[in-house]
């Protein structure tokens, strides 16, 4: 896209996360960052850190020694590192049966409300379903049903975005209080210590043996990260 816009007369600068793609595409100007995929500015709620990242990229626009100009941002973002003293904002018993998910969800919701109050936002919303409908909708896929909702055209898309909302709600709830944990700590908590994590793994299993090819595709690609797949 940098090439395309530059060819159309617009100066560009890129905040890059994948070095192999930068090497192959050679954008006119880029800053290679060491951050996780999904957060090109690095650190949330740290305006000074974000400013450093953004300004390094913008300063490239004033240089005349290109193309190609590639710089590296030198520092990890602070919450890249695990926080040993982190305490999840939600205390849950050892995960039970996936059919009991509603009970767990009910215990998580107060922390989610605290997150929304604290940060003034939520990233939950892609599913187009109220939280109260989630459990029955998700669990029905485990019995072979293929429901959908008005917000999405197919059962596969409806379940794909519901899975994303489940991860978002839990991810927000567990960060509701205190300093930020690392993303690894959130992932480990979700996938190892919650019924919701077990449910998504079960939904992936159901999707992978479904005769609905779209469901099979989204189940394999979008539900569970490889490090947390069973076996």
């Amino acid at each position, binding site marked *: *896209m*940098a*090439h*395309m*816009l530059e*060819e*159309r007369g*617009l*100066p*560009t*600068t890129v905040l*890059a*996360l994948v070095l192999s*793609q930068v090497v*192959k*595409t050679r954008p*006119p100007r880029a800053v290679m960052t060491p951050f*996780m*995929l*999904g*957060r*090109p*500015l690095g650190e*949330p*709620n740290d*305006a000074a850190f*974000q*400013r450093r990242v*953004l300004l390094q990229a*913008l*300063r490239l*626009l*004033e240089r005349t020694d290109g*193309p*190609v100009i590639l710089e590296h941002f030198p520092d990890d973002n602070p*919450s890249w590192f695990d926080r040993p003293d982190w305490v999840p904002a939600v205390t849950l018993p050892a995960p039970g049966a996936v059919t009991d998910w509603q009970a767990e969800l009910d215990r998580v919701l107060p922390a989610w409300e605290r997150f929304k109050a604290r*940060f003034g*936002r*939520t*990233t939950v*919303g*892609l599913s*187009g379903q109220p939280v109260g409908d989630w459990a029955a909708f998700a669990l029905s896929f485990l019995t072979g049903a293929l429901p959908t909702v008005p917000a999405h055209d197919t059962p596969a898309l409806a379940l*794909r*975005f519901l899975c994303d909302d489940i*991860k*978002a709600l839990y*991810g*927000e709830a567990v*960060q509701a209080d205190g300093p930020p*944990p*690392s*993303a690894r700590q*959130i992932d480990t908590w979700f996938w190892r210590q919650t019924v919701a994590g077990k449910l998504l793994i079960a939904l992936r299993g159901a999707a992978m043996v479904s005769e609905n090819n779209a469901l099979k595709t989204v189940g394999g*690609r*979008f*539900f569970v*990260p*490889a*490090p947390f797949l069973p076996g």
Partner: protein
Amino acid sequence: MARIEDIPEPTRTGVDAIPCPAFETTPFVAGPPLAQRRVAIVSSAALIHRGDKPFPFGSGECRAVPSAWATGDILISHVSINFDRAGFQRDINVVYPIDRLRDLAADGTIGSVADTHYTVMGSTDPAAMEESADIIAAALHADNVNAVVLAPV
């Protein structure tokens, strides 16, 4: 979820192997000092306003992200199990640094912030985005933008 080097195989190889176009030329458009730049963001996060339809996977379309949108109403519809979401959950600026651009404009480091930004779906074949590039470029020229920050996720 992970840095690229921490993504397990075979996904990491898949990310590295995503077809990238080889360009015969490397355009390099000059411009005035930063303090005279009007800056726009182009994000590959498939940003949508709450309630809008998510981008279809592999879509080559582009959509506008007006500066006036309340940041609490913006969602990412580029879903990937390899993306970290914790950062975006706490602060949209890790993906769409609109508040940081406003800061830079307020203190005179840049000239101004574009009225409208643009978003596309990452992991899409760039060849499918030529029309979107036309649309984005025309709109940004019309807004007198002379600097674009691309923030792929």
